[in-house]
C-alpha cells in the first residue's frame, strides 16, 4: 500500500482510480485543502517541506496499521510538498472496503495519524507578509513570526 510525497499537484481522481477493485463496495477519501484563515490570521499560501524517505516509510506503516485494525481492501495516501496556493490539495487519503463503516474509520485513522506522525512541516505565509513554521513557536514567542 503506497504512501507518496509529491512535489506535483495531487490529482484526486487519478489517485482514487488506483484503489479500484471488484471486492470493494465502499470508497472513502479525504482531501486536506489549503484554507485562508488560521487562528484568525489571513493566510495567503502554505509551504510544505518533508523528509521524504522517512515520511513515505512512516506513511506506509500507518496504512499497514489501518489494514490490520479495520476490515479494508486497500488504502493509499499522498502528501504534497512545495509552495501551495489557497484551495490546493495538501494531502489525499483513500480507502476501499467491502462496507462503508470500515472505510470511514480507516480513513479517519490514517489522516489523524499522518498529521501527528509524518515528518512534514508547514510554513504559513500571511497577508501581512509575515511567515511562521506551525507548531515550532518557543516560549516567550507567541507566534514566532518573522518579516
Amino acid at each position, binding site marked *: 500500500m503506497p504512501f507518496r510525497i509529491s512535489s506535483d499537484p495531487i490529482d484526486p481522481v487519478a489517485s482514487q482510480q488506483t484503489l479500484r477493485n471488484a471486492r470493494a463496495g465502499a470508497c472513502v477519501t479525504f482531501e*486536506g485543502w489549503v484554507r485562508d484563515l488560521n487562528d484568525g490570521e489571513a493566510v495567503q499560501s502554505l509551504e*510544505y*517541506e*518533508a*523528509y521524504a*524517505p*522517512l*515520511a513515505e*516509510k*512512516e506513511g506506509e506503516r500507518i496504512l499497514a496499521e489501518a489494514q490490520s485494525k479495520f476490515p479494508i481492501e486497500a488504502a493509499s495516501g499522498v*502528501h504534497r510538498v512545495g509552495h501551495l496556493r489557497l484551495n490546493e490539495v*495538501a*494531502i489525499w487519503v483513500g480507502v476501499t472496503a467491502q462496507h462503508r463503516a470500515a472505510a470511514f474509520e480507516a480513513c479517519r485513522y490514517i*489522516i489523524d495519524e*499522518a*498529521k*501527528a*506522525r*509524518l*515528518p*512534514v*512541516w*508547514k*510554513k504559513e505565509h500571511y497577508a501581512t507578509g509575515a511567515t511562521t*513554521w*506551525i*507548531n*515550532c513557536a*518557543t516560549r516567550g*514567542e507567541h507566534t*514566532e513570526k518573522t518579516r
Partner: protein
Amino acid sequence: MPKLHIQYFAILREQRGATEESLATVASTPRAVYEELRARYRFSLPADRIRAAVNDEFVAADAPLRDGDRIVFIPPVAGG
C-alpha cells in the same frame, strides 16, 4: 573523531542557513549532537521538542551513534 552527516529541514534549515553538513564530534547520541549544534547555531527549539532519525529511521534521543551515520533532527511536525 567520528564523523556524522547532518541534514536540516524546515525551521532548523533556516536557522542553520544550510541543508546539510558534515560534523566531526565526540557527541555520542542524537541529543548530545543536537545540544552541540543548538549552542553553536542558536536553534530556538529545545532538545526535548526535537526527535531524531538516523539513516532514515526514527531513533531514541540517547541511541548510540556510529561513524558515518546520517542524522536528521525533526522539529514538531505539521503535515496535513
